[in-house]
C-alpha cells in the first residue's frame, strides 16, 4: 500500500516536473541546451494523458482485480466529446466555410446538424459529455456484466469486444463522427489558438494538474474502508458475499469512476495531439495501457503513472530510431517484467525485504502444520 510519502513524491514529480519543463520552454532561450522544444511539450502532455488512462486501469485492475482490456474505449469517447467541441469551434473557418456544419458532414452531403451534435458548441457541455458518456456506458456495461457475475478472462474478452464494436461503429461515415478520418484541423480551444506554444504549455500544465487530482481521488478511494473492501473482493469474493457485501455494487462503483477518469484523459488528449479518429478504439490500445500498468507496478497508482510515461518515452524514442523492432521490444518488456519484476518498476524502489521473508517463513510454518496434521 502506498503511504503518504509516496503520495507526496508522486505529486511532486508530476507537478514539479511539468512546471520545470514548462519553465524551460518559456524562459530558456531557443537554441540553448536548457531549452525544451515545443514538440517535447506536446509529447509530455500526451504522456500525461496516457498516465491518466493508466491510473484508471490500475484502479480497477490493481485494486479490484478486474482485468479491463477495453479502457481505451472510454478514453476515446472522452476524446470524441472534446473533438466535437473543437470541430464546432472551427466554425466558418473550415474549407467549406459553413458556420455550423463541420467539413466532413458537408463532404458526405449532409445539410443539417444531427441532434446529437447540439450543445457541443459550448465547452462546458462537451466537458460534461466527456465525463457522462464514458460513465453511462460503463454503468450499463458493468451493471449487466457484474450482476451476471461475469469475471476473469470472460470479462476481459467482452471488454475487448466492446472497444472493437465501437471501433467499427465509429468507422462508419453515417454515424456522423467523421468516419475513418475522424476529426482534425482544429483551430482553437476557448479562443486560445492551438498552434500557439503558450497554449500547448497551458494544456500540458492543466493535464498535470488533472492527473494529480485523479491520483488523489484514486488514493482517497483505495485508502478508505471502501478500498479495503475492494481488495477483499479481489482476493476472496465469495467471502465478502457471505459477510453480507454485494461485490457487484462495489465493482460497478469503481468501474464507473475509472471510466470517467479515462474519459477525462481522452478529453485532454485530443486538443494536444490535434486529431481523434476510430483507431483510438483499436483493441491493441487498451492492451498497451494494461502493459504500462504492469511495467510501472500494478496496484500502486504511482506505478501506473510511472509506467505510462516511461513506456511511452521508450516508444517515442524506439519508433524513431528502430521503428520495426518496437512491437518486439514492447512484447519482450512485458514478458521480462512479468518474469523478473512482478511488482513493476516501482517495486525496485520499495523493497520490502522483512515482509518477503515473513511470507516465506509463514509458508514454511504452514507447510509444517499441514504435515503434522496430515
Amino acid at each position, binding site marked *: 500500500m502506498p503511504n503518504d510519502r509516496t503520495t507526496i513524491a508522486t505529486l511532486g514529480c508530476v507537478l514539479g516536473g511539468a512546471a520545470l519543463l514548462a519553465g524551460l520552454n518559456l524562459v530558456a532561450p531557443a537554441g540553448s541546451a536548457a531549452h525544451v522544444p515545443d514538440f517535447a511539450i506536446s509529447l509530455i502532455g500526451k504522456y500525461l494523458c496516457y498516465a491518466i488512462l493508466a491510473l484508471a486501469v490500475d484502479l480497477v485492475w490493481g485494486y479490484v482485480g478486474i482485468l479491463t482490456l477495453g479502457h481505451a474505449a472510454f478514453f476515446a469517447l472522452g476524446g470524441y466529446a472534446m473533438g466535437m467541441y473543437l470541430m464546432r469551434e472551427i466554425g466558418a473557418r473550415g474549407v467549406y466555410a459553413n458556420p455550423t456544419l463541420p467539413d466532413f458532414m458537408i463532404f458526405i452531403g449532409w445539410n443539417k446538424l444531427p441532434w446529437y451534435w447540439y450543445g457541443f458548441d459550448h465547452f462546458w457541455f462537451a466537458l460534461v459529455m466527456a465525463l457522462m458518456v464514458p460513465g453511462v456506458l460503463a454503468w450499463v456495461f458493468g451493471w449487466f456484466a457484474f450482476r451476471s457475475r461475469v469475471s476473469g478472462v470472460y470479462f476481459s474478452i467482452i471488454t475487448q469486444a466492446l472497444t472493437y464494436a465501437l471501433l467499427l461503429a465509429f468507422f462508419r461515415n453515417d454515424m456522423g463522427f467523421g468516419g475513418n478520418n475522424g476529426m482534425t484541423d482544429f483551430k482553437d480551444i476557448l479562443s486560445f489558438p492551438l498552434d500557439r506554444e503558450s497554449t500547448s504549455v497551458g494544456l500540458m500544465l492543466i493535464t498535470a494538474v488533472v492527473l494529480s487530482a485523479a491520483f488523489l481521488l484514486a488514493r482517497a478511494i483505495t485508502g*478508505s474502508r471502501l478500498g479495503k473492501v475492494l*481488495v*477483499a473482493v479481489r*482476493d*476472496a469474493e*465469495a467471502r465478502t*458475499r457471505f*459477510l453480507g457485501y454485494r461485490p457487484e455494487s462495489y465493482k460497478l462503483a469503481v468501474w464507473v469512476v475509472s471510466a470517467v477518469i479515462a474519459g477525462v484523459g481522452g478529453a485532454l488528449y485530443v486538443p494536444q495531439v490535434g486529431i481523434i479518429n476510430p483507431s483510438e478504439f483499436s483493441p491493441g490500445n487498451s492492451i498497451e495501457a494494461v502493459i504500462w500498468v504492469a511495467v510501472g507496478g500494478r496496484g500502486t497508482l504511482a506505478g501506473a503513472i510511472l509506467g505510462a510515461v516511461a513506456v511511452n518515452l521508450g516508444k517515442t524514442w524506439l519508433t524513431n530510431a528502430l521503428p520495426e523492432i518496437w512491437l518486439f521490444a514492447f512484447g519482450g518488456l512485458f514478458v521480462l517484467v512479468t518474469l523478473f519484476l512482478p511488482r513493476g518498476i516501482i517495486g525496485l524502489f520499495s523493497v520490502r525485504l522483512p515482509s518477503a521473508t515473513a511470507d516465506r517463513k509463514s509458508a514454511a510454518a504452514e507447510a509444517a502444520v*499441514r504435515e503434522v496434521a496430515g
Partner: protein
Amino acid sequence: MTEGPLLYLDRVSVSFDGFRALNELSLALEPGEMRAVIGPNGSGKTTMMDVITGKTKPDAGRVVFGDDTDLTRLDEPAIARLGVGRKFQRPTVFEPLSVRDNVLLALNGDRSPRFALWARETPDERARLEEILLTIRLGAERDRRAADLSHGQKQWLEIGMLLAQEPRLLLVDEPVAGMTDAETVATADLLREINRTRSVMVVEHDMAFVRALAVKVTVLHEGGVLAEGSIDDVQNDHRVIEVYLGR
C-alpha cells in the same frame, strides 16, 4: 414472537445433473442450540450449507429462518445480513489485509459502497474489535497481514470475522481439518463459548472432535437424515454403523 425453531429445513431436495444431493431433507435447529452434522462423503453436508446460505437454490422445499423468512428466496448477501454466518472448510480470510482490518470489514453494519467510502472507525467499533481479537486469541497479531498467520490462526481469524458479523446462526464447515491436537481442543472451547450467545451448526468428519463437543448429532446419508441423537446413541445405531463401516 413464536418459540419455534430458529432454522427449519422443510423437505429440501437438490439435484445436480440427475444426482440427488439432497433428498427431502428435513431438519430443525432450536434457538441457542449447537448441532453437529456428520455423514460420509457425498451425503449432502456441504450442499445443505450451500442451500441455507443461498449459494444453491433447491429444486423443492423451504428453508425457514426465524419466524417466517424463506431463505430460498434470498441471495447470499441478504441471508448474511439476516444473521447467518458461514465458515468455509478451507480458511478464507483477506490475505493482504491486517488481522484487524479483516475483523473490521466483518463488523456488523452498513454494507453499501457509499458508507464504506466515508466510514471512519468509531470508538464502538474499536471496542468490539478488541473484544473479538481477545476471544479469538489474536490480540498480539492484530497488525500482521492475515497471509502471515499459521493455518490454525487463520481458522480462528475467520471464526472471529463471523463473530463480528453478529450472526444468530453460525454454520461451521469442518473447523478442525488440518489442525494440531492442541488447536483442535482450543477450537472446541471456542465453539462452546460462541454457542453461549448464538446457535451453531458444525459439519465435521473428526469423531473425537464431535464427541468433545457433546451435543446432539445428526447423521446424513444420501441427502437425508439417517439418525439423530447423542453421539453414543448414534454410534450404536446399526444403520449408522452399516453406512460408516460398509455393507
